[in-house]
């Protein structure tokens, strides 16, 4: 089962390796951040299409608490704090007609956050 998962995800590797990997033989310093990586994560196709798919599934969850749980557990592997929940509900309220778009933004923000980058 792991092999199947690996095979399915393998295609996504290449753009990330090109941004985050180093040439063969060079030391890998995971904490170096570059503006190219930021551009890639913020605007690049892989990340934006991924959050789109992810948001499609999550936006269907009507209960905001459950949505927050799923979102934070999926991306940050932790439950949201009360402040996180409040922020999420407030943000969803700014886009009542476009729940999926709002969830997509939330997922994107979590994915590009420094917590995601450094906390696991």
């Amino acid at each position, binding site marked *: 089962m792991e092999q199947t998962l690996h095979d399915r995800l393998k295609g996504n590797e290449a753009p990330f390796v*090109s*941004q985050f990997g180093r040439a063969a033989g*060079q030391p890998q310093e995971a*904490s*170096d*951040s*570059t*503006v*190219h*990586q*930021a*551009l*890639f994560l*913020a*605007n*690049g*196709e892989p990340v*934006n299409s991924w959050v789109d798919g992810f948001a499609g599934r999550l936006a269907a969850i009507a209960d905001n608490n459950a949505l927050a749980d799923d979102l934070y557990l999926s991306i940050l592997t932790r439950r949201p704090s009360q*402040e*996180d929940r409040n*922020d999420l509900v407030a*943000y969803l309220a*700014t886009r009542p007609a476009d729940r999926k*778009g709002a969830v997509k*933004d*939330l997922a*994107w*923000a*979590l994915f*590009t*956050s*420094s*917590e995601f*980058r*450094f*906390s696991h």
Partner: protein
Amino acid sequence: MRCDYSCRSDEHVMNRRGFLGGVAGLGLGAASGLGSLFGRSGAASAAMADQGKQMLVVWLAGGSSQLETWDPKPGTVTGGPFRAIETSVPGVKICELLPGTAKQMHRMALVRGVNTKEDDHGKGHYLMHTGRPQTPGAEHPHLGSIAARFLNPEEGPLPGYIHITPGGGGLGGSEAAILGPKYGALYLGNGQPPNNTGRPLPPEADAARHALRRRMNDRFATRRRTAETDAYTTTYEQALQLMERREVFDVSKEPERDRDRYGSHDFGRHCLLARRLLEAGSTFVQVTHSNYDTHNENFAFHLEQLGEFDQGFSTLLDDLAQRGRLDNTLVVVMSEFGRTPSINYLYGRDHWSAAWSIALAGCGIKGGAVVGKTNDKGTEVVDRQVGAGHLFHTYLKAVGLDAKGDFLVNGRNIQVADPAASPIAELLA
């Protein structure tokens, strides 16, 4: 917001708060006018860009021949087929392959006594970019990273170190060494804009999600804040600046008659892009021209390459002067090393670092100066021999940087230039 790493000085705290405060307001306002929110008022930052020093390096990759450029020896057994021509400086002659540049010589200085004792491409590249020999375990920052770190105002609109290459673009970071990846090079492969600078959403929507991202990061920062998390969040602000300024990378926005003057070849376009970037306030721009590693057919290749170089470079230098920018822009033309006076059986010249030349112009440089001399055949330096360390000191002095100073970077002292060397006073105005 208290900054628990680095220097803890009040000044640091104030700057961080100011920077973050200015940036946090962005998400709520309209997307237009982003540029001016990233710094002091528009007028002040324009003034700063005007007074700030800038650097332009033209890198002739492969090792261009000093005998076919700055220090010709016509009529000798080593001189090759080309003649020497007069320049705008009486008594100074350069190779006939550089007629346009010859007319600019009064703005330039030549260093003909360079002896860097390094014939290897990689090590020569490192030596000329950092002013220090490459040794295992030590990494020194490039000239471009030093310029980005110490000349670029903190709120500068563009990345400090931009490198226009003939080939690949993309990642940089290791050039800055101890200064940190923020001061690494932004490579523009074949002069193309950086990837991913287009917004995937309309500006207001994008601004809204960036505001969300910042709010989450601010909350995380109260629990955990390090140099690395700051560097990471800063790259997003830099990315936004780049996106806002992406037109700057589009050389087709320059008038067509300019594109003709610079030459309808890649190097010409890259020189025009360099002018555009410098006018937009870019601190350090490097343009690489390839390929000068002429182990065979040295004369044919130099004829061709220098034809492109001469047109692009002389036009660029003249434009910078005409537009009043040359006084604040240091210009350096260099290579890893020069080429052998002796001509091999393939009509080529091989690597040669014992007696070669580089050229300078602009900020702090004495126009028309020629420092150093080689013998009749160009096989040895006979007067005022200098090395990479001296040159490096000279560049820094020309733009007003203190090369002898110690800079405290993350708790370590680094000396910006090799303390064993010193600037070449005869070159400095």
